[in-house]
């Protein structure tokens, strides 16, 4: 397995990470090694196997439609770096 520079940059973009130009080569190698490890799965035939998403036989539960959360905006926003008038601030999105 090998990955080239543009593939690494595309993965980083999808993951919203910036990668230093100097680190690209080592990322290519590390990821390729890990994918080689992962591909050992191909040694077993799984054609007739159902995928297992979850270890227990769980089902989704619904609760009654009551208000259970109280408004804690100020408490929660205390962890944000930039807020104003109860809003979170981000760089301008629309010109």
């Amino acid at each position, binding site marked *: 397995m090998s990955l080239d520079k543009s593939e690494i940059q595309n993965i980083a973009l999808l993951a*919203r990470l910036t990668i230093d130009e100097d680190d690209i080569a080592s990322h290519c190698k590390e990821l390729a090694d890990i994918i080689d490890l*992962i591909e050992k799965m*191909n040694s077993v035939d799984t054609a007739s196997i159902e995928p297992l998403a979850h*270890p227990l036989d*769980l089902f989704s539960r619904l609760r009654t439609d009551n208000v259970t959360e109280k408004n804690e905006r100020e408490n929660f926003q205390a962890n944000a770096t930039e807020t104003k008038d109860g809003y979170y601030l*981000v760089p301008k999105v629309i010109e």
Partner: protein
Amino acid sequence: MHQSTLAELSSALESKKISSEELIRGYIERCKKHNVSLNCFITITEDEAIKKAKIADKNRARGNHTLLTGVPVAQKDIFCTNGVKTTCGSKMLSNFIAPYDATLVKKMNENGFVMLGKTNMDEFAMGSSNETSFFGPAKNPWNNDNVPGGSSGGSASAVAARLCPAATGTDTGGSIRQPASFCGITGLKPTYGRVSRYGMIAFASSLDQGGPMAQTAEDVALIMNVIAGYDGNDSTSANNKIEDYTKNLNDSIKGLKIGLPQQYFDKNLNNDVANLVENGIKELEKLGAKFIDVDLPHTELSIPAYYVVAPAECSSNLSRYDGIRFGHRCNEPKDLKDLYCRSRQEGFGKEVKRRIMIGTYVLSAGYYDAYYLKAQKVRQIIRNDFKEVFDKVDLLAGPTTTGTAFRLNEKLNDPISMYLSDIYTVSANLAGLPAISIPSGFINELPVGMQLIGNHFQESLIINVAHQYQKATDWHKKIPKKYE
């Protein structure tokens, strides 16, 4: 007093031999003194602990208390603790003050546990050595040049050095059992869904499970009695009846059938570890257990499947760190994308970024079937292997790890070798099974753990076997000289 177990501290408080305040002050002093060499705490909550101890004493005097009111505990820094810094071992959350308590923390607080502090861990629980922590590695009390294991390395180190009688951990691929083994303590990963994940910072949601780390199986049972149970705030929380985990502790294990998975005694296993585990097996045989060889033929595939499922879920879970609502935010972003990318680049460490990248890759268009779906099918095969085996035996026994605690920096730059070292632990996570690691001897003054794996919701049984083993042996009583 610091050498006592939770059960012993509970009786000392009950008989008024000591007050909670005296106890907590003593432990806090030990934590402050030894954290310098061990780095096992990220935060020591001295003032809050003393305040809580005084309340515990008042509640005991009024007769308004539980068995454990006033005993100390340390919480892994992955659990949200209201008003207390909760970092998850990351720069990303280095200033995050949790606005609420995790369910596990809430239950322990309500039962009178007094938190001494928050323990060090691999960043976002991704690591097997505690070396990926933004706050530097915790050290192994048996030899400060060795890792304590990970990701719950700080908790294991703190309990082994008796800076706290017990602590909490989380286990996604072995993160409770492997550090318990490396530090010579007892650590239980419960059945998936048995302990609420609410307020436990997510890594891989279908694998993560919180649990106790303590000196003895009896203490593990006492903690399970507090933290186990259904939680409406966790949609994957199991609604099965809660047991009294102390009830079966003293049952005889005579006639129990214990399986030895042949794949756990393979070429990866260090010979000395194999000998110690075999001694452990003989000990259990003396107590009347019967052993038979069993097969888990797809064990080798557990690591590849795990390194698809865990990174995939991690890449999705960690997308919440956007630099906006909480967590690290970069300076002067030029636009929204720059804000996301740079905040994440600066806030996450190398291993976390590596796993986000793998997860993003295996979930990306065109690769989903080849990797993620394939891994889920392999996961089914691994669970089926266990299903078949549990038709024949009551539980399984084997080593927890391939060797003893490795040296700091030994595997840090070789992720593959670090990943492969979890070969005996990840299967239990993929299959959702409970498993416990118990101290079973030493090699060159470094502890070795034996692992017992049970069927779903059979915690009581494996704790019972562990307790009977600990009544017949004293490996769990050994304390590193420097911290006696």
